[in-house]
């Protein structure tokens, strides 16, 4: 601690002495900062220098700033992390989400919703991750991380996802440990029609790779027990996604037919199972979410499950999904926590999802609109709300990548005729 203070002191002197060399690039003035990691929830200025957060304080002088953006009346948060998306877009007409038409190029959906980091949820496996990286990850302005599917060819199609011989924990873990530790944050298990074999192999890969496993546990006829899944197969820190999917015949739900959250679900949460929203095109029903919220079974992370079938439906984008939780009575601070610091912690990327000095400057600025809004679930049921988040300004690595109303730009001055 003492050493830290000395370093900080020297740093401060350096900053003061170097003057112009350390000019602030962007100064966000007067916004209400919500940074759950650093327990900040009040009006603060945020300074960005050389792509990094260089100051968060009640009043930072603007005279040395190259650009000052007045964000008073708005909320300033760490760039949003969407922990469940499908962005392995490609042109293989035979494929579902691996290099197929149903995945989406990330940048068209992220920045305009305040999102700066997405985590692809197992669209690729160890066999096609390299083409995912070359095609999508390396070209996106959005930071794209990934859960690697336990199936070697990822989410190519439902049939291929049943092939147990293509679920190789060793190869999957090798990709994480030795090839792409910076990008791959976990393993995905999904769409399996059989018993617990796929989950067990994914957990094995998770153990070998030292990463969490995200489980989409549906499509069993009749449904497999989620109590058994939570208590016997998943580890603390592993992620259960599509938490508020309303089961048909093939998916056990967290809320029972009488509207009660099943007791073992609370026990699982205590055990450290992470509950992720993963809204998607079929996995978020008010009939599950509303009673769960009322009974204080809240998700650990709020995510979109972005793909072509969710983008124009009830999901839309992260600001819409976040606003749904506001409509259900979750305070804004809790909503922000669940799509910044919580996902960063879950995927072991503690350098993300916060505005700590020195961290990469991924910042979201929101307006909180007041009015009469409606929010659809995947069944066409609607819940009304009085508030809605709107992404005003998004900054990725210190650069403005979205500016809805030009608050970071200069007013147009008509040319007086010469």
């Amino acid at each position, binding site marked *: 601690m003492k050493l830290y203070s000395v370093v900080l002191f020297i740093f401060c002197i350096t900053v003061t002495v170097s003057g112009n060399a350390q000019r602030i690039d962007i100064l966000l003035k007067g916004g209400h900062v919500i940074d759950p990691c650093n327990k900040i929830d009040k009006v603060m200025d945020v300074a960005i220098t050389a792509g990094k957060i260089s100051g968060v304080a009640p009043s930072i002088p603007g005279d040395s700033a190259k650009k000052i953006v007045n964000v008073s009346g708005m909320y300033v948060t760490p760039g949003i992390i969407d922990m469940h998306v499908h962005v392995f877009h490609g042109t293989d007409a035979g494929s579902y989400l691996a290099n197929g038409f149903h995945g989406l190029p990330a940048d068209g959906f992220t920045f305009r919703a305040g999102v700066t980091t997405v985590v692809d949820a197992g669209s690729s496996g160890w066999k096609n991750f390299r083409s995912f990286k070359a095609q999508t990850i390396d070209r996106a302005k959005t930071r794209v991380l990934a859960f690697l599917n336990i199936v070697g060819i990822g989410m190519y199609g439902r049939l291929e996802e049943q092939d147990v011989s293509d679920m190789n924990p060793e190869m999957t873990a090798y990709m994480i440990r030795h090839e792409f530790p910076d990008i791959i944050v976990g393993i995905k298990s999904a769409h399996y029609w059989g018993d617990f074999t796929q989950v067990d192999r994914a957990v094995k890969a998770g153990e070998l790779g030292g990463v969490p496993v995200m489980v989409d546990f549906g499509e069993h006829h009749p449904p497999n027990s989620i109590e058994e899944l939570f208590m016997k197969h998943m580890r603390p820190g592993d992620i259960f996604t599509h938490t508020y999917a309303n089961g048909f015949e093939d998916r056990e739900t967290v809320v029972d037919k009488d509207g009660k959250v099943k007791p073992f679900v609370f026990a699982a949460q205590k055990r450290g199972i992470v509950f992720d929203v993963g809204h998607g095109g079929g996995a978020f029903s008010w009939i599950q979410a509303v009673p769960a919220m009322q009974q204080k079974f809240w998700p650990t992370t709020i995510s979109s499950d972005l793909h072509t079938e969710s983008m124009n439906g009830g999901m839309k984008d992260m600001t819409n999904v976040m606003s749904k939780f506001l409509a259900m009575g979750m305070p804004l601070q809790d909503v922000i926590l669940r799509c910044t610091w919580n996902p960063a912690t879950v995927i072991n990327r503690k350098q993300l999802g916060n505005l700590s000095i020195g961290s990469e400057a991924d910042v979201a600025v929101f307006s909180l609109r007041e009015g009469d809004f409606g929010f659809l679930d995947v069944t066409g049921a609607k819940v009304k709300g009085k508030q809605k988040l709107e992404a005003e300004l998004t900054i990725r690595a210190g650069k403005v990548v979205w500016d809805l109303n*030009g608050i970071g730009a200069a007013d147009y001055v008509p040319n007086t005729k010469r």
Partner: protein
Amino acid sequence: MNKTRDVFSDIYRSGWRKSVQSILQLCIGVVFITTNGWGQTYDLLLRNGQLIDPKNSINGKMDIAVLDGKVAKVAASIPSNQAKKIIDVTGLIVTPGLIDIHTHVFVGGKPETFADGFLSVSPDDFTLKSGVTTVVDAGTSGWRNFPVFKEHVIDKSRTRVLAFLNIAGNGMTGSPTEQDVNDMDAYMTSLVVKKNPEIIVGVKIGHYEGADWAPFDRAIDAAAKSNTPLFVECHLPQFSLEDQLKKMRPGDIITHSFEKIDERMPVIDEQGKLRSFVIDAQKRGVLFDLGHGGAGFWFSVAVPAMKQGLAPNSFGSDLHRFSMNAGMKDMMNIMSKYMAMGMSLQEAVERATWNAAKAIHRNDLGNLTEGNVADIAVFRIREGNFGYTDAGGNVINGTKKLEAELTVRNGKVVWDLNGISGTPLNPVSASK
């Protein structure tokens, strides 16, 4: 009608007691049918909206009913008992589905190119949420790779995707092949246009760096052979604006009309005056499309041009990877921007619907005439303080902003921002 047949077959199949019952049912049915205008029920009814349909000179409170994917009726009041689904759109604006005549949507896996590449975007990602139901791809494909474009994008999109065909055989490859005059074949281009009359609406010239006029002439030739308009992009640095406009025929379309970059002379001169040859071209019937894009729209050109009578004829967005998150954003933003510059809502809607449809010779689109396809946009006018940015990063402030509430494509709801088509969650069922 099916119901009537069922009742008769009931009579044939069952005993007399049942027959009496059936006859009673039939009588009730006939009464029902009569009051219902021969049993016609609509699939969808949008009630109490402010309907703006410039083609049909409608701007007022009107209901609109949809049946079998078509506009079935537009009237001051359509009884609600005639429709299966009713959506109350009180306070909202109802228009024909918007048409964006300048996009790049031949998305694919190739890096650094528009044709089958990463620089194009998927139409459905951006259109429906902005009230757009039809886009026209601006020559991203040429006659050689149009089939790939059709298979990968056009046939797979919910948005109606039409196209201008590039005079360059492989479209916007960005590689030297795009400059190859030998691969600019008027005959082959016109042939592919004529073979795909439902999709291809014209021919495009753009991205040619040489001084030889052959590419331009061949593009006009291909357009003439296929009886379609020519769409002129920029990036033709050695052709003067004046010469380009002079070669263009009435009905041909020039885009990026308000750009201010080196490759083309702006439409206004150094004194801010609209150039006389531009006015001449406009009078002759050359159409000026917006083509906003990442670099194609500057207030310092567009504002004086509009004051002097040159507003864009259509609102092509030039949607692609570099414009989507910049000053352009989407069609709603472009229309709002022009309203902030002083254009009326009615004029903005006209440019995004009927003007665009006429420009591409698709008079079946961009209007709500009964019998035409039910592509409908419903949007809200937000009041507040908004800002609109041009390619130079300059902002104009406005107090209104359009927001797409509901989009109907081919009679189906494909976008519903606030769930106005949804059913309220029953609190009892939620807690049960």
